[in-house]
């Protein structure tokens, strides 16, 4: 575990190890964990929202009741979305991250 000297000191953190802000799991970019990336094919999607229901990380982006893509900063690449996507649609493909490497 890397300890950075610019992290706050003992006088500047909440007492008792409390976390005072809600929703800060968002700051932890678990997208780094991903070795396979879900790729959404818009034209095949039936908008059933099963992927959104099953995603354990809330990483399926939905706007006005419709899937619009993935939050790759937080998607861990588990592939549950691709498994749950109905075979008739098969709108999500898991692609190795190496194919996106710069």
């Amino acid at each position, binding site marked *: *575990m890397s*300890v950075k*000297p610019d*992290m*706050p*000191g*003992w*006088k500047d953190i909440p007492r*008792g*190890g409390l976390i005072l802000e809600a929703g800060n799991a968002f700051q932890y970019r678990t997208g780094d964990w991903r070795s396979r990336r879900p790729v959404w094919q818009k034209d095949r999607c039936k908008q059933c929202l099963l992927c959104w229901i099953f995603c354990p990380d809330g990483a399926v982006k939905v706007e006005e009741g419709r899937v619009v893509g993935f939050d790759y900063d937080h998607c861990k690449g588990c592939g549950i979305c691709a498994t749950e996507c109905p075979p008739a649609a098969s709108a999500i493909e898991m692609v190795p991250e190496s194919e996106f490497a710069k």
Partner: protein
Amino acid sequence: MTIKALSGNEAVAQAMRQIDPVVVAAYPITPQTEIVQLFSGFVSDGLVRTEFVPVESEHSALSAVVGAAVAGVRAMTATSSNGLALMYEVLHIAAGLRLPIVMPVVTRALSAPINIHCDHSDVMGARDSGWIILFSENAQEAYDNVLQAVRIGEHADVRLPVMVALDGFVLSHGVERVSLLEDAAVEAFIGEYQPTVDVLGDEPVTVGALALQDSFFEFRRQMAEGLYHAPRVIEEVGREFEGISGRPYGLVEAYRTEDARAVLVALGSTAGSAKEAVDLAREEGLRVGLVKVRAIRPFPAAALRELLGGCEVVGVLDRSLDYSGQGGALYTEVKAALHPLEGRPRARGFVYGLGGREIGMEDLVGLMRELVPSGADVTYLGVRE
């Protein structure tokens, strides 16, 4: 002798296999889990005769082991951190009943905040429970200490339980070269168990009776006497163990202290790193040395006075806080040990590594550079201000 690449947990499990206790009752907790997991494998593979009792908590684990021990057999368990804290009540019962139980403790910080990594708060919190407590520098010492603990605790002049501390993750999960004794050599070394109490035997006996104002004090004084004999027994057993293993053991280990102006005092795996740091500091021309404390209960005060009496400054490394406002537990005890000496060295305390915070070579060498010239009595090494 067989040389193997083993983690501290694996080495401890191997020692337990060779001891072949009649009863092991245990509850898993990180970073001790592997010991229990491996040992229960030995049970199901028929490599030991042990009755393995899976229990619902550490309080139950040590209670079951106490029950087995009063039934006249060798019994063991192992734990860590909050598990040791949950055993607190039974720790005193095991010692008060004078049961030579051996218990490896994989050291880990206590909650809260929750943290699974190494510090010595768990063991330090149990240091006044009447148990003998040995610390291990590496996986080899963890293995060797567990075997010697059987002989130390069971010695007729001692008859007390023994904790063997090994640093969580650093030693428990790190793989190192470990030399294992042959099974037969261990069997001969530990010998046959000689119970002093056996509730299942032919002679009726009452265990755990009430002792009030008229007698409790005397039982406690007896228990203290057992601990007072322990230093001699620890050294005797260490010499005998050296005879079969080639590895010497005592209460403390001195490293390059002969002409040292400043000496560090440390426990566990940090003592190993500190040896390297002493070598590096000596290359810079600093006359420094190290004393590794192996037994913290009983506390080796006489041995420390002898080794530290001639130096100018003693730097004591504590991987726990005792909240006395005077630094850590080891520091205050080293100071107490030095107190009777005329012209005693100055003692400085360094609290480090809580919750697994890394202590690096630069930290240790840097500390030695400024040990003699000046500095505060108590320093929190590596904490962000």
